[in-house]
């Protein structure tokens, strides 16, 4: 062991609580590397976008742009997607589910489009809410096969400017005085009964008679609805505007007429087909 005191000239002369600091010079090349990094930075500033200004940074001699790179990458991805859905437009829409790879690509594209155009009403999971249909279930107002979904998306619901739009209107039985309040109560009781909920049998029987006169034209003799009119099935547990006695009374009294845009004027046929595939794939597709 060497004696530290014999190396006195090798220390910096700094001392803290008896601990001395060695004077260990760093190698000269270390200094050169430091200068090299400064030169490197200078060259970098010349070649690449570097100094920020009010209207963007200095462009640099190489013309490098991360935005251009992103644009190129997005274009490449889109070209790849185009390849994946190539042929989707050449087959009848009903035939799409028979082409698993095309269908898969279409569903993926439709999912993205759905997140942009449809979630505002139908929700991110397409589960809807009161007044906005749940697209996951197997209960369809206007039909759940590929072609029906496609038509609904194309032409929308109750769009006066579209000749092929889905259209129907339920009378406001109470508000417009078509039925007396007591008759409305009876019909409501009948609907409560056929939907499998607890009901007053005597009142429901009275309502049944009125139902056969006023409602069967659209909702059918058995109350299971008719898709030609977008008339809902009243016998299942799925309600667009609520299934409680109060909700049903509100519907019979005022009627509802929901709307949906005719997407044909906003979206390409390709996007509409993708959306159709996505909605069909949610589990209720027919």
């Amino acid at each position, binding site marked *: 062991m*060497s004696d530290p005191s014999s190396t006195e000239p090798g220390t910096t002369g700094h001392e803290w609580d008896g601990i001395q600091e*060695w004077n260990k010079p760093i*190698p*000269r090349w270390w200094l050169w590397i430091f200068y090299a990094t400064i030169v490197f930075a200078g060259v970098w500033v010349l070649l690449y976008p570097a100094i920020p200004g009010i209207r963007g940074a200095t462009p640099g001699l190489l013309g490098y742009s991360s935005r251009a790179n992103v644009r190129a990458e997005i274009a490449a991805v889109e070209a790849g997607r185009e390849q994946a859905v190539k042929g989707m437009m050449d087959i009848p829409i009903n035939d799409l589910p028979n082409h698993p790879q095309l269908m898969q690509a279409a569903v993926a594209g439709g999912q993205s489009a759905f997140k942009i155009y449809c979630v505002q009403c139908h929700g991110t999971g397409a589960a809807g809410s009161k007044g906005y249909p749940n697209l*996951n279930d197997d*209960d369809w107002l206007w039909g759940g096969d590929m072609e029906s979904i496609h038509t609904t998306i194309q032409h929308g619901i109750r769009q006066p400017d579209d000749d092929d739009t889905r259209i129907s209107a339920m009378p406001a039985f109470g508000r417009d005085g078509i039925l007396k309040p007591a008759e409305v109560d009876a019909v409501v009781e009948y609907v409560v009964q056929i939907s499998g909920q607890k009901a007053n049998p005597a009142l429901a029987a009275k309502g049944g008679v009125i139902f056969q006169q006023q409602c069967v034209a659209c909702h059918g003799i058995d109350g299971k609805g008719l898709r030609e009119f977008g008339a809902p099935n009243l016998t299942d547990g*799925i309600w667009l505007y609520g299934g409680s006695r109060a909700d049903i009374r509100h519907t019979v009294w005022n009627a509802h007429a929901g709307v949906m845009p005719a997407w044909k004027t906003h979206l390409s046929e390709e996007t509409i087909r993708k959306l159709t595939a996505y909605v069909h794939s949610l*589990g209720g597709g027919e």
Partner: protein
Amino acid sequence: MPGLLKPAPQPPAGLYKKREKIFPKEVSGPYRRAKWIILCVTLGIYYITPWLRWDRGAHAPDQAVLVDLAGRRFFFGGIEIWPQEFYYVAGLLIMAGIGLFLVTSAFGRAWCGYSCPQTVWTDLFMAVERFIEGDRNARMRLDKAPWGPEKIAKRISLHSVWLVIALLTGGAWVFYFADAPTLLSQIVSGTAPFAAYGAIALLTFTTYSLAGLMREQVCTYMCPWPRIQSAMLDEDSFIVTYKTWRGEPRGSVKEKLAEPGIGDCVDCMACVNVCPTGIEIRNGPQLECITCALCIDACNDTMHKLGRAPDLIGYTTLKRDEEERKGAALKPIWQTLLRPRLLLYFALWAAIGIGMAVTLAGRERMELLVSQDRNPVYVQLSGGDIRNGFTVKLLNKELQPRDFILTVEGLPEARISDPLLGGEPGTQIALTARADGVETRHLQVRVPPAALEGKEHRDFAFVARAADGQGETRQAARFTGPPPAGDGG
């Protein structure tokens, strides 16, 4: 142990210093021989490994050791690691760390001296240097000589051989990441990916500059390990030590005959001349010393010629050195090695190794991962059934495609369907997972409301059975229905 690795005494210096050129002398002896063997073995493993083949069938690469970054697989002989099993690699790194603690507290910087790549390649480069330019004195002469035909020729051939070795080193590295024969023909024909050329160029440059030009400066200035080591050594660690009490005061053979107080060291400078880091071991343990033990070989050579006892410089611990000085009887070496600290390191190291081996041997070759749809959590169907959606991933780690039957257990009257495929829901679904791959499907499970028995949740399991009957795997899941009436929610 504070102060153990003290820097060597230095003359006063400025802020920067020029590198002092080092011309290590050739030496022979048991430690030099051991280093040659280790050099051949480690470099042999490094250069040859990517060329070893391993038959894995038609669906997997046949390279014994392959890091397939694009396919996200790591092949090591019969072992294949998926990215989610990377903890095996982490475990290996922890073992390497604890192994270093173990070796360092037992034998000092044995890693640095014998098997660190920096040491091994520097050794190789020095051997080339000695072969072309001659031994220490010849090299010093050549270095001082003015530039002439001989010097130019020798320097050009030296640096050329270095560059070739460096190129092979970088080349060998990239072969671990792709099929070696294919990549070699691509590299030669100029069709290899840019990353391959870039990696070769970078590693050629680092090997050439670190092993050829930088050498001991890497250890002294750049590597953090020497700093950590000083905290790991203790008075029971075997390190390369000059026995001051035996060597000092120095004197020639004649002086020792005349004066009995003279020590064994004849100041022949052999230990300094062979040192690859250019230090004076007689100043005691110091930061720059990588414990390569070449000074032991050099000193023993001198001691042997003089007929004196060997190991004036030798592997010993501070404690044993002190006892030897006092003339006390030395404990057997195994007693020093079997101290609790080393046993604890070894136990930890072995436990991790055994744990990894056991889990590796018993790991599943297939796995089922299930995540439930969150939005919507459940769907009420018009017939009254409740439906849940699940993303099911079936991992097939076998190296051939496998067929599986997926069923649901613990959920009465459950039926499964794949909405993309359509068709009537059934009690099972057939899946085919590609070789060494993952099959991902979005499946829907429906039950009649009675199956939930009035509760909101019901736990069940997905079960995947191999169609060939060889094994099954299951994954717990939870089915969710509407909140029970009166729940308020």
